[in-house]
């Protein structure tokens, strides 16, 4: 186990001092009694003095001073949402993490604790583990892991440069919001979020009546073909697939093996089963191995590590190939006395870049018959992306 950086744990405990704030603000609220006494003192006035506060304001301050007083300051380590007022029965855990009393479907999800964040960085950058492996071990989405590495890197750089940091602010936020802690040595790490989310494909939204004999088994692979309007598989082809997760391994090896349906602009790839489209298809393969060989745990885990290694190698090779192809197309000119690099790319005029009619707005360069729209009135020039 690597040494953990737990700088937070000490500093977190500092907040009691900070959070213990004054109760003086109560006295700052203008009270009715004082204003009415003022009215009495002005006896020369014939008309009644206007009310110091409207009814609504009075009601609001009444609420803020009684029921709402609990929201003024937070208690470290607990959430402090409006839903705590509505609790009449026994307190449930889901209630404490709902910020909006009227909206039961929004939950304040835990964020990564400082130690867990540092652990992610340690594993990815220092131990050189793959994002996929770290994601499975810690139960964190792969996109989040990449973002965490980026952010911790940036933080380290800013610390080295001596730029200002918002440390007390960070401490306060980590006390108000639920966090996922890093497991102690020997304990099992609590999963931060579901990592195998299947995005709902728009094609699956339609309701299709597709009669199948009861005697025939109808799998996810076939359902995907029905949704995308592809003809049923040949018997020989179907016989090769014992389980939909077989397809996943095949597609990782060769992504071009997914067949297409439709013609021209309507051409689309056949919808693949969930086993292929989830972020961690290898987990299904592992579960299948476990089911098939329940008593050979060592062999199964060895097979899994071999599988992961092979998939990583394939992915790495593909990434490098893509990078090389991109670099081949690009010429970078960096003059010595210039602050700028010039990246020069050849323009390509194909239907993919200029559109089917050659007038696509995304294509580069001045083209005959295609007016530049950027000077016309009302044209929005807000950037649509910023290169990292």
């Amino acid at each position, binding site marked *: 186990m690597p040494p953990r950086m737990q700088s937070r744990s000490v500093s977190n405990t500092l907040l009691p001092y900070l959070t213990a704030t004054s109760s003086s603000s109560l006295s700052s609220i203008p009270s009715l009694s004082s204003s009415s006494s003022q009215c009495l003192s002005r006896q020369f006035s014939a008309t009644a003095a206007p009310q110091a506060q409207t009814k609504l304001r009075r009601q609001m301050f009444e609420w803020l001073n009684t029921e709402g007083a609990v929201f*003024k300051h937070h208690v470290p380590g607990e959430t402090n949402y409006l839903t705590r007022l509505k609790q009449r029965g026994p307190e449930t855990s889901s209630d404490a993490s709902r910020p909006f009393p009227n*909206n039961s479907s929004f939950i304040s999800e835990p964020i990564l604790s400082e130690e867990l964040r540092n652990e992610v960085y340690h594993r990815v950058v220092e131990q050189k583990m793959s994002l996929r492996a770290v994601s499975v071990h810690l139960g964190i989405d792969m996109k989040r892991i990449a973002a965490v590495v980026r952010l911790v890197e940036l933080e380290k750089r800013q610390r080295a440069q001596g730029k200002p940091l918002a440390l*007390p602010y960070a401490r306060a936020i980590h006390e108000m919001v639920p966090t996922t802690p890093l497991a102690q040595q020997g304990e099992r790490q609590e999963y931060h979020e579901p990592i195998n989310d299947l995005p709902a494909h728009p094609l699956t939204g339609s309701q299709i009546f597709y009669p199948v004999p009861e005697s025939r088994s109808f799998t996810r692979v076939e359902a995907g073909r029905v949704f995308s309007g592809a003809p049923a598989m040949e018997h020989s082809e179907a016989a090769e697939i014992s389980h939909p997760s077989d397809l996943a391994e095949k597609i990782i090896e060769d992504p071009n093996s997914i067949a297409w349906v439709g013609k021209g602009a309507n051409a689309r790839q056949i919808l693949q089963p969930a086993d292929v489209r989830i972020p961690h298809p290898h987990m299904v393969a592992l579960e299948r191995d476990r089911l098939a060989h329940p008593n050979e745990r060592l062999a199964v885990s060895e097979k899994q590590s071999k599988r992961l290694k092979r998939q990583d190698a394939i992915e790495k090779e593909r990434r490098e190939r893509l990078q090389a192809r991109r670099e081949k197309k690009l010429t970078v000119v960096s003059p010595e006395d210039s602050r700028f690099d010039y990246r020069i790319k050849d323009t390509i005029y194909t239907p993919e870049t200029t559109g089917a009619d050659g007038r696509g707005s995304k294509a580069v360069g001045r083209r005959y018959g295609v007016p530049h729209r950027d000077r016309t009135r009302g044209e929005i020039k807000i*950037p649509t992306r910023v290169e990292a």
Partner: protein
Amino acid sequence: MRNRATNTLSKGKIRQSWSKYNLYNMQRFRSPPTINRTFFQQKWSAKAASRAYHGEQVREGQWKRMFNHRIRSVIPMNASDLAADDGSQASSGRGSGLDMGGKPAYQKRPTPYTQMTFAPLERRLDVAIFRALFASSARQARQFVIHGAVTVNGQKMKHPSYLLNPGDLFQVEPERVMYATGHTKTAYERRQGRLVRRKAKAQTSEEEVEAESKETAEEETKETAEEEAKETAEEEAKETEKEDPKETLKALMAQAKSIMSAGKDTLAPQRKQELRGFQQAVRRVLSRSESSTVLADSLEAQFSQLTLLLKAKRAEKKPDNKDVKLRPEDAFASDKGDRELAAARKDTETAVSDKLSEAFSQATLGNEVDASELSDEEFETLKRALTQMRDNPLDNSKTYSTPWQPRQYMSAFAFIPRYLEVNQNICAAVYLRHPVARPGSAEVPTPFGETIATPAYGWYLRRRW
């Protein structure tokens, strides 16, 4: 753009804001009645209520163009379920699986699609800044962007309506964030800040005039910077010179303890006085130690110097006693007043592994201070007080009240949605992906329930129902 997003009590609209007016409006909000009202009226009022919260800074036409009836959703998959069934079980029988004695084969929780109506607005830079808890309202976030305090992928971005792409990293200046989320200054603090600024101004003008006589200028700046604090420190240092080092350290710890144990009823100025006293005491100890070449006004230098001093004490204690660390929960408990309880629940197994103790173990120096009588708890208290003094100093030149503390009523609004990954230390966040709905929960934070979300979604469909 004129700010029409006022928190009026008579209208009772909910806004993207942390103000106490908004909190009050939020708790008293009730869904508009549907009885005796036409569908049009129901949808209209639902739209009005939800648009007051979601992107009131966006024109209606602009939002209509952004709206998309198709809503992103995901289904969390279980690998073992997928491995056990290739889909033929779920489709067996008459197409929806065999009857398992009334128990459904798959858990079916409804996905709250219509709660995601305003998901496209969450892509906006100003809204994302508000969601990342970097600003106290969407309007303030918008101002931060316009005033040039926000970068996207390292480049300054001045358009609040910039639509973030998945993977974009945005960052707000930490000072602005501290200002937005911190307590406001009192009149006294504002005045002190003015004095500091005036002094600094006078100094710079003097320096310009007396450019030749550098030495005198330096002396002056030193004097003005430290002023009374140093004088008193020197005086007290002389007084305490004869004292035992053990005694001074003990006094220091008592002071730290009084700071840490300040209850909720202690007034802010009083605690500030305590903190000032603690700072002075620290200076005193430093001036007594041999290597007091470090300037007393640099907090960082003070901190490292004191940790070195403390190290001596630690090294002495190590052989016979194990390091003990307070667990966070214990610390919270101690905040409430039951210190004994916390002490009883100490976790002896966990060794101190933070940077401080690393620095202790790595540094090698002779023992100067003999303070082995001090308990571990006291030692921890001192360390915490020191760290806090370093991270959260008293500084009236800041735009917020110092030492920084969260603004009132902030905790009721504090949540970070899953589609953002935030690093609060540098006030940067990554927009990971677009918000999605999943069975039982929707990621778009909205204070409205199903009875408002669904009619509002219906309002924006091209073909209304």
